[in-house]
């Protein structure tokens, strides 16, 4: 098998970063990204792209920590290079504030982000309704720039990108040797994963260039994330809602909650409302599977279900998925050798 053909389904942050990792670990592979949507119309484009991990209930913590660490290290290097502004990666500092002291004062990722510490009394004065807080510095991946940068890197490796709605992974079996499923919420339909569910998030993207720090309420519902040109104000976490339509009442509510954390947002301009459906799951599915029909086999690698934490762990899961793709290819090449040996 001279040049294994790999199809990656999905062109959000997971699909594109997984495709890129595959080109890095398996340079002889010919990779094609197939997706119904590309940036700026993916779920990833709505996300703020903040590196603050979401905790998956059923994934072992050490694995989540490893994914986050790999992602943080990878992005930190880019943020400090000449590529940073093209890639949309930048450092941002700020505060996570709690109305009541959380049970877990030290999250698992506290030693991976920079300068993590408890907020001082003087800092907490800025948040009269909150009694406890954490200050740290982390990274932000602005979209669309980050996705467009990944697409550019992929094209430079010869990766093809094609707009195509894949209805069934099996339809790819004759054209590709390995299929990588990064379809996000699309996996619900594509592979019938009923453990996958949307968590609807509505956000506002506003112009408020004087806001240089992030502020996040520890309840995860209210957050202010300054990006390159716009500040993302959030949000909502509506489990099970499939609606992509912005809701006016929700817009008002998000704006009010954010203004109560940062009053200067009253002066924000050019408010855009966006909705994304987080592809949520109790654990991220990074796993090999072999589909077979009538004696024909199709190796599949799944990498989906990142929910609210896609950006935070994307590179780590992409590395893992690329490794699994490598295993699939080795297995196929083993079979090729074995079947040739029989002649």
């Amino acid at each position, binding site marked *: 098998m001279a040049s294994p053909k790999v199809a990656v389904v999905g062109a959000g942050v997971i699909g594109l970063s997984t495709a890129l990792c595959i080109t890095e670990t398996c340079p002889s592979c010919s990779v094609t990204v197939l997706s119904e949507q590309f940036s700026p119309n993916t779920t990833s484009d709505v996300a703020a792209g903040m590196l603050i991990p979401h905790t998956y209930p059923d994934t072992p913590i050490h694995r989540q920590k490893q994914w986050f660490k790999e992602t943080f290290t990878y992005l930190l290097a880019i943020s*400090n*290079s000449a590529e940073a*502004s093209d890639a949309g990666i930048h450092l941002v*500092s700020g505060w996570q504030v709690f109305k009541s002291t959380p049970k877990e004062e030290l999250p698992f990722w506290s030693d991976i982000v*920079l*300068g993590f510490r408890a907020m001082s009394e003087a800092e907490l004065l800025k948040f009269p309704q909150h009694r406890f807080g954490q*200050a740290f510095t982390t990274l932000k991946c602005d979209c669309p720039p980050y996705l467009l940068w990944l697409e550019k890197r992929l094209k430079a490796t010869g990766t093809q990108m094609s707009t195509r709605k894949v209805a069934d992974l099996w339809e790819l079996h004759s054209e590709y040797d390995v299929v990588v499923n990064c379809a996000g919420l699309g996996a619900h339909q594509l592979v019938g994963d009923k453990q996958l569910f949307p968590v609807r998030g509505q956000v506002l993207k506003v112009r408020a*260039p004087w806001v240089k720090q992030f502020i996040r309420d520890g309840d995860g519902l209210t957050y202010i994330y300054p990006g390159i040109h716009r500040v993302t104000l959030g949000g909502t976490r509506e489990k099970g809602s499939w609606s992509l339509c912005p809701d006016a009442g929700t817009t008002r509510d998000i704006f009010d909650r954010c203004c109560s954390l940062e*009053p200067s947002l*009253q002066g924000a301009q050019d408010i855009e409302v966006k909705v994304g459906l987080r592809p949520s799951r109790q654990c991220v599915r990074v796993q090999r599977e072999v589909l077979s029909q009538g004696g024909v086999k199709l190796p599949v690698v799944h990498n989906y279900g990142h929910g609210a934490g896609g950006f935070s762990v994307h590179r780590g899961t992409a590395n893992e998925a690329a490794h699994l793709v490598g295993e699939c290819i080795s297995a196929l090449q083993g079979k090729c050798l074995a079947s040739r040996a029989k002649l």
Partner: protein
Amino acid sequence: MRVAVIGAGVIGLSSALCIHEQFHSLVPSLELEVYADRFTPHTTSDGAAGLWQPYLSDRGNLQETLWNKETFDYFLGHLHSPAAKEMGLFLISGYNLFTEPVPDPCWKNIVLGFRNLTPKELELFPGYSYGWFNTALMLEGRSYLPWLTNRLMQRGVKFFHKKVESFQELFSQGVDVVLNCSGVRAGNLQPDPELQPGRGQIIKVLAPWMKHFIITHDMKSGIYKSPYIIPGSEFTVLGGIYQHGNWSEENNAKDHKSIWDSCCQLLPPLQKAKIVGEWSGLRPARPSVRLERESIRLGNLQAEVIHNYGHGGFGITIHWGCAMAAARLFGSILQEKKQLATPPGPRL
């Protein structure tokens, strides 16, 4: 009671506002006038990035540390006011970098969240082995000066675009008190060998991904001679020039290269930043701020001057504390002239 303020930079305008706020209702005859040869956006204050940060050492002037603190606390209290955006006031965090350990600055407890940098953070800045992180305030001159001007105009303060040649000139027109906020050119009004220009040059770039200030220090060369990067609300300021005694306000190509090369080396992403402007200005440098009264005999009249100049590269940092102190000096003048029955304060 005619009061003339000479100078319309941050010191002149804030002193005028402070005096008007405190005394206009107590002194019905108070008439405030601002005289300047340059107004915003052409003052020294307009070129400053606007970051609140004093020098590393207090130079033995505890009074100045107090004025710096008063300024910080005052504006921290105004962060959430509706005027903050118009004033150009916001919080910003960032890094101070050194090549060797240094003592903590006297302002460590004034700013928010002051701490040393961790080893991982220092890895981001090759060549620097020690540093601080803290959250401070920005007060952008381009917004703040127009805001001060509007507040003063609303209060009926009059503005005169005119180069005042002497204090005498104003007193002979019937001015009772002069506030000398003439900054780097105060020497034209009264010789002051201690006042020297501390020439600076800055490059303005578009780098909207920058969310932190980064100030490097070379303890051997001195303040502002090492690269610094300060992101504002519209553009980012790159600097690192301090030339004592240089009166030139022309941009210099060698300085440009020095700033650009050193800032890009400090922060490689800047290589992609678009240059949108350049500016040179003269910091009114002095070993200490001159903030004091002077009585000048003019014939049979006693004329009063309140000097408030020589704020170097920390004018915005210290301005409100100084304005309050100038207002106190004005109050004592009023008392002496029996313009005030009682000093300003709660009426019983």
